[in-house]
């Protein structure tokens, strides 16, 4: 029933839930399998990241409900709980009880604001396995049950006392301090009852409650214990991904040079362009280049058809239209005179054509594209996949495509790697040409944009578009002012647009949004947070660039 397979597809949605509830950087990831002999796995809240284990098998409940409850509980903690309180000299049992009461306080606060949660929690409680009569964990579980479910009852005196004390404070749920007193009373009672707590096996009794490690500031030991968390395994990537990426990042032998072009660069401090400042070196891909790792199969891109009014096409004899079709109108009158039923299709309207687009896809190949994304794949890997999807999607169309990559090593060496030229037939497997794209060096975007614009200017299609796939702001070894290359790239985009080239950028990095906005302008870029949505974002960008409505 429960399992990693049921959790993984839900992680993104649960992250959205955190965001919707006001946790901006909220994220939900999968927690590694539990140690064999340790306590039952519980979620871990680390900053705004929640790590969820698989649902425990003993509970007969829908894993979906449990994961949602855990996410909302974490939201409650982030909203209402104190963070990293000093533990003082309190005993583990007292801390565990304080955590358990805090968990209930948070759940009750959430239930007050979001009544549907009460139903969810009670549904989960009903699937709780039979509780043992004695032991700390059992008592805490029974206390939490009666506090979360008004209909539940319990005959244990300590549980009843706890319920009475808690309900006496229930009017002050917002005040965490108000519950300290009752925790120490209850902990004291447990001491007198000689209830023992097994530190090795204790876990919060309710599986949607996290381990509360975020509540306390322990010593240095605890800091290390916290790092039992880990990132989810790379989806679909081979196990050897990191070494292979490292291999890719290593300096490859330079590819054969085709031509050199000089371009100006805009110096915003001087408010003028310096001619012949940058040298773009065009490089070719040798035919038999090692192919890239084949990207996991994704659904092919579905591109919208362009619909553009074309007055040169006149569609005659229509039921409705903008103008009368004169020939048809004449026939209507002839038919009337002859006493025949006239054909009512007497309008004329304009047809539509599909204007041809030349699209240049420019891939950022700087060293940073070797970085792994949270999904476990490198930026370059995702860029290659996007390029392959686009190449496949355009195979059946008239549109012309060039795919190029760029990186730079100072202003004298901006490499422009021609992976696929305009007019060149598409290889059977796009991965064979894309494999030549290796990460390395820096990002001098402006020079690459100027060269791409020059390449596009030679195209004779009705529409010319430049789509940049990038992972961040431009930088280079000889540019010390962070603004310089941004301003230069912004200038290059303005120049390209003046030449009738539509420019758009898709980026996988939200951190550099301010720079992207400066370079490509409002509406000239889109940030794709979730690599799984890259294909959709690409199809949409293409539709916008190619003028499809």
């Amino acid at each position, binding site marked *: 029933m429960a399992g990693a397979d049921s959790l993984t597809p839900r992680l993104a949605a649960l992250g959205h839930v955190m965001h*919707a509830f006001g946790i901006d950087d909220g994220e939900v990831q999968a927690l590694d399998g539990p140690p064999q002999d340790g306590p039952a796995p519980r979620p871990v809240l680390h900053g705004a990241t929640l790590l969820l284990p698989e649902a425990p098998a003993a509970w007969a409940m829908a894993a979906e409900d449990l994961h949602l409850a855990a996410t909302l509980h974490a939201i409650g903690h982030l909203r209402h709980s104190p963070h990293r309180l000093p533990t003082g000299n309190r005993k583990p049992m007292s801390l565990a009880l304080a955590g358990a009461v805090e968990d209930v306080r948070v759940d009750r606060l959430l239930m007050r604001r979001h009544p549907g949660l009460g139903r969810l929690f009670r549904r989960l409680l009903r699937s709780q396995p039979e509780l043992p009569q004695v032991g700390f964990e059992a008592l805490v579980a029974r206390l939490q049950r009666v506090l979360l479910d008004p209909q539940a009852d319990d005959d244990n005196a300590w549980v009843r006392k706890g319920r009475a004390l808690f309900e006496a404070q229930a009017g002050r749920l917002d005040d965490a301090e108000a519950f300290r007193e009752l925790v120490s009373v209850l902990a004291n009672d447990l001491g007198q009852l000689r209830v023992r707590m097994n530190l090795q096996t204790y876990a919060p009794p309710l599986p949607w409650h996290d381990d509360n490690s975020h509540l306390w500031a322990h010593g240095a030991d605890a800091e290390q214990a916290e790092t039992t968390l880990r990132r989810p395994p790379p989806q679909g990537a081979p196990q050897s991904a990191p070494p292979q990426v490292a291999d890719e990042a290593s300096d490859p032998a330079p590819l054969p040079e085709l031509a050199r072009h000089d371009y100006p660069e805009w110096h915003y401090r001087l408010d003028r362009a310096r001619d012949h400042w940058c040298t773009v070196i065009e490089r070719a891909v040798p035919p038999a280049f090692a192919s890239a790792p084949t990207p996991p199969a994704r659904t092919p891109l579905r591109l919208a058809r362009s*619909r553009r009014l074309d007055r040169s096409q006149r569609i005659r004899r229509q039921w409705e239209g903008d103008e009368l079709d004169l020939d048809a109108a004449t026939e209507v009158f002839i038919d009337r005179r002859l006493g025949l039923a006239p054909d009512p299709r007497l309008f004329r309207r304009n047809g539509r054509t599909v204007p041809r687009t030349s699209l240049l896809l420019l891939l950022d190949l700087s060293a940073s594209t070797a970085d792994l994304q949270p999904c476990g794949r490198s930026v370059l890997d995702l860029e290659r996949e996007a390029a392959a999807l686009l190449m496949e999607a355009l195979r059946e169309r008239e549109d012309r495509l060039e795919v190029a990559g760029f990186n730079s090593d100072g202003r004298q060496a901006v490499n422009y790697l021609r992976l696929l030229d305009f007019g060149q037939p598409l290889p059977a497997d796009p991965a064979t040409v894309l494999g030549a794209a290796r990460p390395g060096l820096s990002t001098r975007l402006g020079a690459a944009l100027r060269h791409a614009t020059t390449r596009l200017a030679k195209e004779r299609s009705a529409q010319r578009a430049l789509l940049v796939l990038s992972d961040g702001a431009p930088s280079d070894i000889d540019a010390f002012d962070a603004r310089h290359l941004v301003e230069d790239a912004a200038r290059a985009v303005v120049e390209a647009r003046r030449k009738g080239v539509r420019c758009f950028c898709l980026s996988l990095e939200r951190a550099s949004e301010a720079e992207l906005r400066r370079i490509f302008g409002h509406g000239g870029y889109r940030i794709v947070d979730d690599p799984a949505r890259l294909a959709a974002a690409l199809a949409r960008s293409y539709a916008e660039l190619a003028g*499809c409505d």
Partner: protein
Amino acid sequence: MPCGVSGAPTRTNAMDLTPYRLTAEPYYHPTGHEIALYEHAYAHRLPLVLKGPTGCGKTRFVEYMAWRLGKPLITLACNEDMTAADLVGRYLLDADGTRWHDGPLTTAVRHGAICYLDEVVEARQDTTVVIHPLTDSRRILPLDKKGEIVAAHPDFQLVVSYNPGYQSHSKSLKQSTRQRFAALEFDYPAAEAEADIVAHEAGIDRALAARLVDIARQSRRLRERGLDEGISTRMLIYAGVLIRDGLPPVDSCRMAMTAPITDDPDMQRALGAILESAF
């Protein structure tokens, strides 16, 4: 080309615009001083563009203002298949030959109505240029197929609306069109006001309305996570109406609010979870 100039004041056969007059006061809850701003714009017949997300009350505002000013209102929802002829009119054939038929824009210009082009960016840009001569000091509408220039009636005003949307590139107005308009910006009302609106329009109690508004505001946060648009005030009213009819709240909200706005399965799951927590 023979050009007759005609304007409504001199015309004897002024068309009866009664069907376009609002008989009852439309409910409108102001969120700022937009009513005063509109009145000043109308006093000078400035063309207006209303910008704002879908379902936030732009159309209702125009209806309310038309009622308040006592002017007829001709509304046109724009779409990409709309041509200039759909706006200005075309020749039709009848027993005696061809007969010119005024389009809705021409009717408003000739007889003095407020013409409201809803979602104007949906119309193709070559269609929207026909409004240019109407939106500068000329205030005329040339009907080139008919060979007539219609001078605008003194009561005529052009109002258009569009949704600036989420980083869209192709659907925006040309500068030459933009710069002819004064603009009012709309957004979803503040939580309190929005709950009042939903409670009033759907006929539900204030607490339930506030809960619906809560859900909508959570969904609007998800725009930062890739949702194109959050749940609009209009959707809340639909959901409220269904709940008032006795449908279970979760079903009503799913049907009227969360199911329509996105096809993305992750977003659907997230919205479903928000609904589940709310009721």
